[in-house]
């Protein structure tokens, strides 16, 4: 039975390349936002303005989870095909 991964692995390398680049760009964007969230949370916490720290953490965690499940969509190339 064919599934999403099989279909993705059989895709043209051009398509796979584009997908891979898009995934990495999104991940870099997520990490950039997280750096800003950490900086803001820390800066406000040190300035005795602690209310920002918790929302910043929640947003950061959500971004991490998005990035984590994003990895499922990473193309695997032709490795599977070779094993068979």
């Amino acid at each position, binding site marked *: 039975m064919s599934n999403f991964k099989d279909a993705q692995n059989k895709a043209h390398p051009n398509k796979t390349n584009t997908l891979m680049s898009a995934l990495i760009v999104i991940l870099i964007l997520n990490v950039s936002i997280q750096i800003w969230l950490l900086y803001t949370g820390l800066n406000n*916490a*040190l300035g005795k303005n602690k209310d920002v*720290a918790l929302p910043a953490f929640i947003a950061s965690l959500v971004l991490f989870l998005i990035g984590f499940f994003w990895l499922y969509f990473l193309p695997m190339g032709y490795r599977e095909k070779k094993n068979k």
Partner: protein
Amino acid sequence: MSDQVNEPHWKRDFPIQRTEATKVSRRDFARFLCLVSGGLATGSAYVAVKANFFPPEEIKGEHFVCKAAGVPLGGTRSFVIEGSSIPYILIHLEDGSWRAYEQKCTHLSCAVYYKPGSGQIVCPCHEGFFDAMTGEVLAGPPPRPLPALEVVMRGEDVYVKAGNEGIAKNTGRM
């Protein structure tokens, strides 16, 4: 065949090409980004827990610093409050008023000093400038004002107590 005989033994023991050893695939790079993302989320969690459950101890009561005559106009005096290791600086401004601030720059904790006659507190490390009257940042990289203590005069004695929000608003910046 002769090539295989002449091949050094280490090549058989370690059959990995230099290009393979140094190559980082895009899959690995994406995974690494995810790891960094997890690290940043953990850092944010640490900040949130520290800010909400372990707030810094506030100074209670008044603490004697020195006699007023011991600090001339435009002069300063460093002091530490009992039971704390935070260095503070007491400033006798040229207009006769007194101010007390933490002596740690809010950028990277370098020791700041008062520049007599200028009304400015200077951090020499990265050229940070604070207003000596309010503790607000005037120029440079510091992100927050200097935390202030309130100075109380009792006759000839100078005392300090927990900071007055009116002197320096310790609000963070985004």
